[in-house]
């Protein structure tokens, strides 16, 4: 069943189509929820809430290109994840505290160097960023939202979003560089091979 037909049948309330939608996209949406939830239980909860909302509003989805269904579902989920005013205020407050992350320029790694870092190390590096910076980094680099979209989603200014991204990138680049040099908190000697080439 292609995306369009799946969406139409879900909008009609077809239980089998809904299940197929869940099984096709559930795993990716759960991964997305984990990036913005504080723990796995909250992520699971968020994903279930997202599916309830998706099933309710899927009649409004308009197919434009391949994979637009997932993009739309991701957007619904992100809106749900950040629709709490309390959460948005906390993130905005954290991003206003510019001292929490160094703005010093970093020696950024290349594509291949970054690709050689083990996944769990990368995840640990991203998780170590302050929540606001981590959120902006994930939204821009992983979800590929523009600064305008991030600003609208988080209730911050576009300039604040781009400044936060620069600091998050610099911090992450430093961590990757340190790891590649066999240094820093993410490198445990003997656990990971030295990646420096």
């Amino acid at each position, binding site marked *: 069943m292609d995306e369009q037909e799946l969406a139409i049948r879900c909008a*009609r*309330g*077809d*239980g*089998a189509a*809904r*299940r197929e939608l*869940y*099984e096709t996209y*559930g*795993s*990716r949406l*759960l*991964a997305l929820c*984990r990036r913005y939830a504080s723990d796995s239980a909250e992520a*699971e909860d968020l*994903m*279930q*809430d997202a*599916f*309830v909302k998706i*099933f*309710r509003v899927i009649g409004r989805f308009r197919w434009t290109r391949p994979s637009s269904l997932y*993009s739309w579902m991701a*957007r619904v989920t992100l809106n749900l994840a950040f629709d709490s005013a309390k959460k948005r205020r906390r993130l905005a407050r954290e991003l206003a505290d510019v001292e929490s992350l160094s703005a010093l320029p970093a020696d*950024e*790694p*290349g*594509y*291949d*160097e*970054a*690709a050689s*870092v083990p*996944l769990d190390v*990368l*995840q640990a590096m*991203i998780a170590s960023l302050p929540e606001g910076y981590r959120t902006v980094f994930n939204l*821009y*680099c*992983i*979800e*590929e*939202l*523009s600064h305008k*979209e991030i600003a609208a989603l988080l209730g911050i200014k576009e300039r604040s979003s781009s400044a936060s991204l620069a600091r998050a*990138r610099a911090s*992450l*680049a430093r961590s*990757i560089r340190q790891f590649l040099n066999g240094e820093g908190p993410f490198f445990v000697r003997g656990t990971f091979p030295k990646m420096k080439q």
Partner: protein
Amino acid sequence: MKHVTNKDWTDAVRERILSDGTALSSAGWAAVERRVRRSAALRHGGLAAAVLLPVIALLLWSPWRQAATPPAAPAPRLAESSGSVPPEPPASLRSGPLAATSPSNFIPGPASVIPDVIGDLPLAARPADNGVPADMDETAPSVAEEASPSFSGADSHHSPALTGEAEEGIPIRAWDEGKTARQRPRLALRVHAATAVRGVSVAGGMLPLTVMKQITEEGHWIEVGSAVSTGDDPSGAGDKVMVYVPSETKWVSETVQTPQAPVFPMAVGISLDVPISRHWALTTGLDYCQRPGNSVYNNQPQSLVVHYFGVPVEIHCLFWPESRFRVFAGAGVKVEKSLFVTGGEPLQDPFLFSANLQAGADVRILPGIRLYVAPVLSQFLNKSAYNNTWDTNPHVSLRMGMSFEL
């Protein structure tokens, strides 16, 4: 989401992060399904409340309820029918609380003729049993005395309400003149919950479905006999003769146990009771209900929720029709049509006919508003295209609702 990144190290990070598959928990879909159902129920409940509350409010505080003015019509009729004009009360009486009421609205007669609004008057000004204000009995006996002969006049049968002969035949509102309280139609808003008497449980359970299955039999050799000696070469005699049967594809029917859609069979409806006598009333209306039903579509069993709209026609017998607490019994028929299904593809479903018996009770909670409950025993008279336990077994449902007197 239209920004384009250069192929830099963050792309590598993105690819690594997105490559990480997250396994869904086995109970995840059940939880989502449960939440979807709950959310839909809440939404529908909210919608129903949003529709019903204004109706209830309108019925409770409707203008005709508020404007319970004394009926003006009976007085002139009294004058015409008796041929005598009752004298106006003395001017001294008109200075009392009833002075605002015009003489033509002053109605000597049974207490129940006097509208409810009089209950708000001071005690001294309230009418006595003969319809005359208490403080008028002594000061102006002529009013009652002169009016009373007209009640027993030759034409008094034209207005039995004024004679007090019929205890129930008393109009209460101007627009309702001539209709008794029991003759007014009652608008009943109903909510039903249904459950099966026997068979499978209401939410869940398995039902057998016959599906056609395509099977392919592998090609094989079969023995058809033994070879016999032919002429000069007897060596092959007695050998088995085998024939190769090529592979064959055929359809066979198979019975599969299919779960019923986990939906609570629920019905809501609106109906109108039309009294035909003191104890009997006809009821009709429009019902919506959802029931689980299974079917086979493209040789695949499917569990559906079938949504029906139906029109019931019932007759009810009311016991103690005027009391606060009433008991009733009834019987009727209902015709239903499935208009749409959820969870699969619809089938051509015929009109479904069912007969029912019921007994119940209602209680008046506010003037003109009653709550009722009635267990109903129903039996379908024909079978649905969807496989279910409802049209094969008699089932009991519980009707609960509220009725409003129009």
